[in-house]
């Protein structure tokens, strides 16, 4: 049996300290936590930075390192620093070194890097080793070269290579959400379908229980399946909370693709062992012929400056779409005469259809609207310049020509808010590997005093 303790769904999300303490008492074989996902958008991969504050990350990581010391087992984090790019891994590694020095611990740290060289990926694409997944964007070799970061998602094999170093702490770059949990049970010969299925159920911590905020759960893997136990007193796992988690952020609730194969839970059974523990068996791991890892890439998509104006005058609120269309056309024409370079201006009406756009089913009537002006341009200077050309329109543009100049509400001075470079995801592909470690690099160091 292999017991995996999962403190929470991600480092930075918080957990119940009591639940974590109970988890340590349960004698886990490993502590595994996720460090990120693509869910907060392309900025983090595009820039190789973390979404969470450095101070919050350090505070939680310090507690997990202390829990690890108490349990005397490895602590592994996947997708470190939100995006798992090499810079984000280095960021968390540096935090780890600081904590080890501050707490006077001597530790063996293994670092698994998932970053890919854009030029090498362009060559792999031209060699036919990169293939598109469903709904992938069109790409050429140039797409890979344009990426500021490309990462490959490590699976269980690469995490096990890191565990094999005997490290106390493993900081991994981009991994699948499940790999850090499934790795040790697979290495110790547990049921492979159970290992991957339990990892999927556990990847968000207590989200698959009746009290998602409690964070900590323990999953025990064995020869035929797994048992999930929430560590908080007020959290219960039921067949429903566990089976329903296969729906979460997953386009197919029965099939999950991983490096080297896929998990099929169509025949899984979910049995309540008591009122808070669930036993799962019957999931199947189907190995694939080719060993592939998924790629994620982000590239720069211009620079953005946004402005926000509030409109409360009823006649303008009623005619806000034509007001915006008129401003968009006039401002674009004027800016084209005054600046060089590519740009776009978009005006979104908050309170009308800013969220769903053309798909909005309602009529969105209310007493006020906000108009969000979004200028995207090829340089930062141009983006701000065009936003400044937009400003007088947002401030004073009349609905008709024969009326007094109106004035609208700006919440800020200056009204232009530069957002810097914006990025976009541009890969939804898999890379074929001869050996699982081919696209990954493992570094080991001693840290602390």
């Amino acid at each position, binding site marked *: 049996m292999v017991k995996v303790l999962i403190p929470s769904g991600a480092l930075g999300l918080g957990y119940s300290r009591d639940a974590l303490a109970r988890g340590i008492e349960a004698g886990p074989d490993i502590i595994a936590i996720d460090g990120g996902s693509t869910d907060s958008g392309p900025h983090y991969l595009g820039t190789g930075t973390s979404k969470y504050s450095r101070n919050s990350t350090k505070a939680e990581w310090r507690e997990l390192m202390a829990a690890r010391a108490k349990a005397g087992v490895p602590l592994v984090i996947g997708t470190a620093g939100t995006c798992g790019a090499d810079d984000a891994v280095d960021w968390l590694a540096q935090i780890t070194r600081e904590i080890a020095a501050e707490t006077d611990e001597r530790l063996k740290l293994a670092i698994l890097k998932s970053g890919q060289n854009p030029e090498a990926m362009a060559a792999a694409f031209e060699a036919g080793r990169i293939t598109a997944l469903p709904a992938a964007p069109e790409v050429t070799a140039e797409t890979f070269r344009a990426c500021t970061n490309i990462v490959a998602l490590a699976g269980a094999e690469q995490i096990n290579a890191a565990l094999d170093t005997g490290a106390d702490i493993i900081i991994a770059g981009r991994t699948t959400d499940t790999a850090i949990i499934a790795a040790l049970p697979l290495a110790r010969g547990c049921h492979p379908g159970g290992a991957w299925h339990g990892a999927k159920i556990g990847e968000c911590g207590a989200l698959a229980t009746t009290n998602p905020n409690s964070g900590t759960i323990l999953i025990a893997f064995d020869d035929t399946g797994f048992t999930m136990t929430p560590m908080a007193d007020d959290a219960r796992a039921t067949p429903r909370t566990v089976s329903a988690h296969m729906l979460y952020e997953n386009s197919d609730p029965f099939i999950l693709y991983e490096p080297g194969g896929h998990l099929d839970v169509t025949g899984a059974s979910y049995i309540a062992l008591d009122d808070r523990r669930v036993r799962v068996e019957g999931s199947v791991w189907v190995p694939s012929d080719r060993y592939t890892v998924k790629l994620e890439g982000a590239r720069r998509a211009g620079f953005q400056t946004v402005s926000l104006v509030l409109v409360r005058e009823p006649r303008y609120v009623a005619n806000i779409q034509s007001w915006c269309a008129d401003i968009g056309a006039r401002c674009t024409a004027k800016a084209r005469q005054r600046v060089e370079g590519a740009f776009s201006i978009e005006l979104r009406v908050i309170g009308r259809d800013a969220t*769903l756009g053309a798909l909005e089913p309602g009529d969105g009537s209310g007493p006020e609207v906000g108009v969000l002006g979004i200028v995207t341009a090829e340089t930062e200077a141009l983006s701000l310049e065009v936003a400044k050309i937009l400003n007088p329109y947002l401030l004073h543009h009349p609905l008709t020509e024969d009326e007094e100049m109106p004035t609208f509400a700006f919440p800020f001075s200056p009204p232009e808010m530069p957002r810097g470079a914006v990025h976009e995801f541009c890969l939804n592909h898999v890379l074929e590997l001869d050996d699982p470690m081919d696209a990954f690099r493992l570094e080991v160091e001693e840290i602390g005093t």
Partner: protein
Amino acid sequence: MTRLADMAPKIRSKNAGPFWLTIDIFCETAEVFTRISDGLQTAEMARAFATQTGQIKRFDIAALNVIKISLPRPAVQGTREDRDMHGASFAEIVGELRI
């Protein structure tokens, strides 16, 4: 004609990676599940999302009283055209469908 939002206790939309959107209609009871499962046309859903029926993956899961719909995101997450980074609001479109 009843709005789905008035029948199902919870409708959730989430990203399934940057390129896919997934929407879960939690029906809670077998009665509501059967009613929505029988009455909800995939073509109607496709129309609401301005896409083709063939783009929609649909799973009617009686064991959970859940209907799950997945489709390529209307705009890829985080692009200039995207309006909802976490895909959280697309559930409202489904909630407004009537059967």
